[in-house]
């Protein structure tokens, strides 16, 4: 019914948004702040939080560390999802990063920082090799394999008692102070979020998206699809393996729990909650989920129920994702126009 005098709401892109999408013409400081402001503010927040230890207490600093680690895992998940590789087993990357760092520091006696770097890179490359043969699988079949692999690893470790069996590998020296670990992850997160998004927006991202949609034509275009997918997995795994590596040095131990389902589910839910399709959205999702789950500890066993309730509510009411919603609101203005 459109009664006379009825109004409808109209949404329009702000002029600056329209201009900055195509040609980059800035008309002064105000517009520069408008465009760069949100990401600078987010970066500053991440960089300043560790300095507030006296004020927040150690507990929330640890929550922050875990949150940033999960943000990394979520960014990793979102990148792979973006190129058509939906992972249901992100704990594979997480656990591999942890275990390889432990081996590097305990068996190879590398200094902790070097061990983290080596663990991160070798784990990502190793996961790429491991997943190489199944990269040709499409959609849900690939997802199923990724789902099975971490479970398989955990069972193998349990049954053969390699890698410390159910006890895990203990005695990993800490990587400097808590702040050092926090800043390592924060820098990693900033590089991953903006770097991977940039990569996706470049011609390389164009090719990766094309592979997802129509790999036959990409092959006909002379692009070795297998190698590109392998590269995407390795690059996409890096944030998650870094998170696993740093958390291993934080807890001083890495065990089968690194392959637990939680580390597969959280990145996925975070990306969906924040807004799938963008790296920043995934990071925002994880930044909300981890503290939320901490706050819900008060609910005891009902914590999971409350957690799920919040999640379902968010998904139903904001299907596009929280980050996408806020971004859209930021870039558009609304007005009432007569029908």
């Amino acid at each position, binding site marked *: 019914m459109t009664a006379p005098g009825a109004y409808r709401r109209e949404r329009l892109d702000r002029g600056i948004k329209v201009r900055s999408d195509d040609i980059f013409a800035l008309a002064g400081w105000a517009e520069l702040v408008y465009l760069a402001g949100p990401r600078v503010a987010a970066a500053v927040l991440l960089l300043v939080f560790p300095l507030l230890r006296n004020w927040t207490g150690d507990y929330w600093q640890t929550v922050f560390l875990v949150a940033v680690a999960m943000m990394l895992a979520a960014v990793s998940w979102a990148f792979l999802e973006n190129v058509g590789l939906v992972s249901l087993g992100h704990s594979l990357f997480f656990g591999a990063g942890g275990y390889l760092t432990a081996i590097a520091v305990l068996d190879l006696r590398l200094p902790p920082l070097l061990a983290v770097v080596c663990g991160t890179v070798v784990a990502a490359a190793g996961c790429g090799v491991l997943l190489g043969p199944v990269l040709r699988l499409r959609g849900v079949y690939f997802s199923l394999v990724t789902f099975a692999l971490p479970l398989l690893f955990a069972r193998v470790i349990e049954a053969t008692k390699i890698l410390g069996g159910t006890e895990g590998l203990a005695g990993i020296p800490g990587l400097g102070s808590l702040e050092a670990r926090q800043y390592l992850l924060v820098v990693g997160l900033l590089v991953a979020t903006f770097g991977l998004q940039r990569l996706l927006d470049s*011609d390389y991202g164009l*090719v990766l998206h094309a592979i997802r949609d*129509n790999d036959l*034509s990409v*092959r*006909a*275009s*002379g*692009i070795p699809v297998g190698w590109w997918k392998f590269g995407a997995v390795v690059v996409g795994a890096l944030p998650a393996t870094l998170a696993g590596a740093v958390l291993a040095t934080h807890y001083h131990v890495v065990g089968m729990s690194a392959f637990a389902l939680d580390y597969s589910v959280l990145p996925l839910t975070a990306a969906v909650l924040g807004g799938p399709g963008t790296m920043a959205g995934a990071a925002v999702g994880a930044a909300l989920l981890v503290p939320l789950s901490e706050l819900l500890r008060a609910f005891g066993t009902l914590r999971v129920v409350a957690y799920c309730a919040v999640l379902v509510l968010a998904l139903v009411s904001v299907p596009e994702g929280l980050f996408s919603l806020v971004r859209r609101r930021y870039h558009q203005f609304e007005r009432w126009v007569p029908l």
Partner: protein
Amino acid sequence: MVDRVSKQFGGVRAVDGVSLEVRPGEALGIIGPNGSGKTTLVNLITGFVRPDNGRVLFRGVDIAKSSVEARVRMGIARSFQTPRPFYRLPAFRNVIIPLCSRRARERLGSGFGRREEVALDLLEEVGFERDAAAVTKPASELPHGYLKRLELARCLALDPQLLLLDELFSGMSPAETASLIPLLLRLVQEGRSLVLVEHRLAELFQVVGRVVVLDFGRKIAEGHPAEVMTREEVRRAYLGGEVSASA
């Protein structure tokens, strides 16, 4: 050059001991009724399908086991019978994809920052007018004839030495085919080899000097177009099979 290649799918002998040769600067037509193995032959030459037996020689090298990408790098490109564009991408970005390949970077200098320009040039060559709305429209919104020409542009982005076009003209208006024939002739003149799979014989014969006729996967005739079409076995193969109105 293709030497006695065969390919069987289940019980179907899609291509059965076919040999043929195309020289540089020559255009060859491949005709035959539907299901006679033309597309399979293109797949065998370009590497989308591996032959059961027989050899595929390109510049004297047996490439029967090479990957599609390796063959593209050697200079073999093909278009798909049913266009397979990147539907979500604007037309010119469709052409950016092949321009990212090694062959294009080496041969067309489509390095970083040059790709858009080269892509627009290629689209202009196949008849998209520069700045026309079609260039920036997503491929999903383009009419069929444009998609066919987009396929051709994607191939040209690979600077092919051997270009195989699978029923490029089908679904195009006479005006569209007429505008493409000079381009194809020029490609041959530049010394490239062209293989055209076609049902539209009138247009085909304006480009090629020799045709190969396939029927049930076997080569039943080869020679000058006008002469081949008079042969009894060719006429019989086409009976019941469809010969396009323009033939």
